């Protein structure tokens, strides 16, 4: 045996040192890098198994991200539609009325007047008001004709509904007072009647009454009920009353609904309450009588929509979370198999000085790495899937970074949680029995 001199000297020194060493120093731990390397090696040794197990986590994470992102996108879509009705919007519809003890359905009898609308302008916090009537009418321009909602409103309507102009101008208070025959067209109507030509300055006829087109509204798209908000022709209220709708003798001053804009930053609920009390006063309702009108706070509607959309996406996300849970059980299953298969390895590691916590850490890290790899691929797939779904459904897609972080965190936790039991089993093995295992 011709061992190198240096080494034999070291071996001899080791023995001497061993004899003089009084108490052994506490053994250090396994370093993390080494543990990661070892975990990746162990997973690479069983690639198919690792891939299949990771697939469970992958599907769960992808599903969570896709449902949350698509849900958020759909929610934003609906909220956008509600916002498109106008910010800080209050709407008053006729309510049900008691007439000689017979309760009539809401809107059966119009009981809102243009004067109600004007009076509401006095309520503090209300910055714009419009009384509106609406009817379905045929509008004609040259050879083209189109059936649309002809709406009589006050000039404030455009402010109330945050409606911008594509071209031309709105009608003025002067024109409204004078009941002039001017019309502002919604984008859909302008396109139907004039195509690409400029509509402003042209003439249209409504019920054979000629109107001058003075403006075209910017496109708003669908409202939350799916109606095209741009399929409308807006004319001054009194013009509508006199020239289009035909005067109703009883309700000559009646309106179908009143829309109001509350000042930015004002308390919507408070403003709504003020409006309600003035309306009750004007309608001479006794304290015990119910409202004969319906007051809608559109921000409440938005909140309701938002809450139900949130509930729906929570529901979807929890279904997705269940698949993550199933993926986690897959991780646990495979880790248990792995611990059993590698019992001898564990025995050996214990024999050469691994402490229980080293073994625990080794298998935990392996489970977490497995789950995280599945999770990382799942994030990519989830984002891809969200975009694909968004494209198919025509929704905007909002990748929720918190959902991504949550999904990755949850997959790591899944590995940790479902890896713990197998790892603990490994760590508690008796080294002698483990070494004899086959």
């Amino acid at each position, binding site marked *: 045996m011709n061992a*190198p001199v240096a080494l034999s000297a070291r071996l001899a020194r*080791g023995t001497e040192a061993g004899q003089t060493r009084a108490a052994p120093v506490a053994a250090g731990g396994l370093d993390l890098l080494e543990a990661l390397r070892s975990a990746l090696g162990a997973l690479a040794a069983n690639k198919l198994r690792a891939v299949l197990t990771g697939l469970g986590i992958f599907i769960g994470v992808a599903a969570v991200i896709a449902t949350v992102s698509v849900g958020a996108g759909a929610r934003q879509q609906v909220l956008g539609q509600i916002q498109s009705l106008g910010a800080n919007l209050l709407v008053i519809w006729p309510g049900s009325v008691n007439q000689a003890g017979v309760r009539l359905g809401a809107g059966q009898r119009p009981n809102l007047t243009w004067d109600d609308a004007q009076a509401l302008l006095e309520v503090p916090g209300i910055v714009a008001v419009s009384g509106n009537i609406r009817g379905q009418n045929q509008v004609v321009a040259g050879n083209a004709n189109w059936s649309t909602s002809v709406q009589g409103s006050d000039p404030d309507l455009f402010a109330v509904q945050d409606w911008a102009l594509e071209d031309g101008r709105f009608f003025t208070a002067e024109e409204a007072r004078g009941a002039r025959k001017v019309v502002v067209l919604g984008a859909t109507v302008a396109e139907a009647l004039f195509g690409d030509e400029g509509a402003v300055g042209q003439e249209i006829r409504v019920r054979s009454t000629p109107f001058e087109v003075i403006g075209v509204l910017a496109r708003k798209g669908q409202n939350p009920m799916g109606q095209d908000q741009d399929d409308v022709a807006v004319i001054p209220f009194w013009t509508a009353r006199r020239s289009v709708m035909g005067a109703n003798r009883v309700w000559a001053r009646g309106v179908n609904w009143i829309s109001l804009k509350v000042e930015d930053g004002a308390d919507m609920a408070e403003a709504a309450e003020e409006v309600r009390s003035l309306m009750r006063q004007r309608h001479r309702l006794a304290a015990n009588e119910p409202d004969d009108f319906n007051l809608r706070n559109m921000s409440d509607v938005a909140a309701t929509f938002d809450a139900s959309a949130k509930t729906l996406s929570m529901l979807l996300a929890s279904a997705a979370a269940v698949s993550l849970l199933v993926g986690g059980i897959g991780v646990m299953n495979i880790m248990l198999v792995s611990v059993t298969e590698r019992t*001898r390895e564990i025995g050996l590691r214990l024999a050469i*000085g691994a*402490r229980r916590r080293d073994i625990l850490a080794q298998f935990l890290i392996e489970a977490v790495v497995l789950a995280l790899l599945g999770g990382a691929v799942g994030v990519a797939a989830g984002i891809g899937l969200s975009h694909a779904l968004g494209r198919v459904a025509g929704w905007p897609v909002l990748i929720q970074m918190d959902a991504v972080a949550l999904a990755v965190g949850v997959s790591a936790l899944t590995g940790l949680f479902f890896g713990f039991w197998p790892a603990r089993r490994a760590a508690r093995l008796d080294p002698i029995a483990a070494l004899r295992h086959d």
Partner: protein
Amino acid sequence: MLLIETQGLTKHYAAGEGTVAALSGVSLAVSPGEFVAAMGPSGSGKSTFLNLIGCLDRPTRGEYRLVGEDVSRLPPDRLAGIRNRRLGFVFQSFNLLPRADALANVELPLVYGSVGRRERRERAAAMLALVGLGERMHHRPSQLSGGQQQRVAIARALVNEPDLILADEPTGALDSRTGLEIMALLQGMNREGVAVLMVTHDAEIARFASRCLRFHDGRLVADEAQAPAAASAELAALDDGGARAA
């Protein structure tokens, strides 16, 4: 200071209703640098003795001092530390990690001993060179012969510069010639100052130890010093014989 000192070392195992005495009242002392063989039929207690001396198990009764330190009552993680720094293990079935190459296998005890990466590499490589596998450091166990695998295992047992190597039937899975090579290697290491405690049921192999313990029914029945046979000389003779025959 004595390397091993046991006083009435006893191990009982629960078996059904009662207990089985796997080892009863073994008292002995081993000095540093000895080469001790523990013999006996299966069930004689020699493996239990090895497990206790190897700090893989704790005695039911009795005392065990390793390099002066009483280790018979230490908790599992302290024992792990002792195994890591004072002891090296060689098994019949080698117990190498199949996925790791020879170098990584030899490095393993140093990993648990918190030795830095570079030093680990150097020491493991030097140890592999010492057992004659300097050219095969990056071979996996499956690419090595049985004798070479056992050499890797011996390098792994030595890499932490232990006081004592515990060998459990180290030649049991090898043909007699390869077994002889392994014994020559162990004797060589022993001459460098590392004590060896080897469990075997094979008298042929026990000849290479300088002291022979015999176990029977859990008791130490004989403890004799002997003049060890020289494995390297027998190996040379075997090669001569082979050459002459050819």
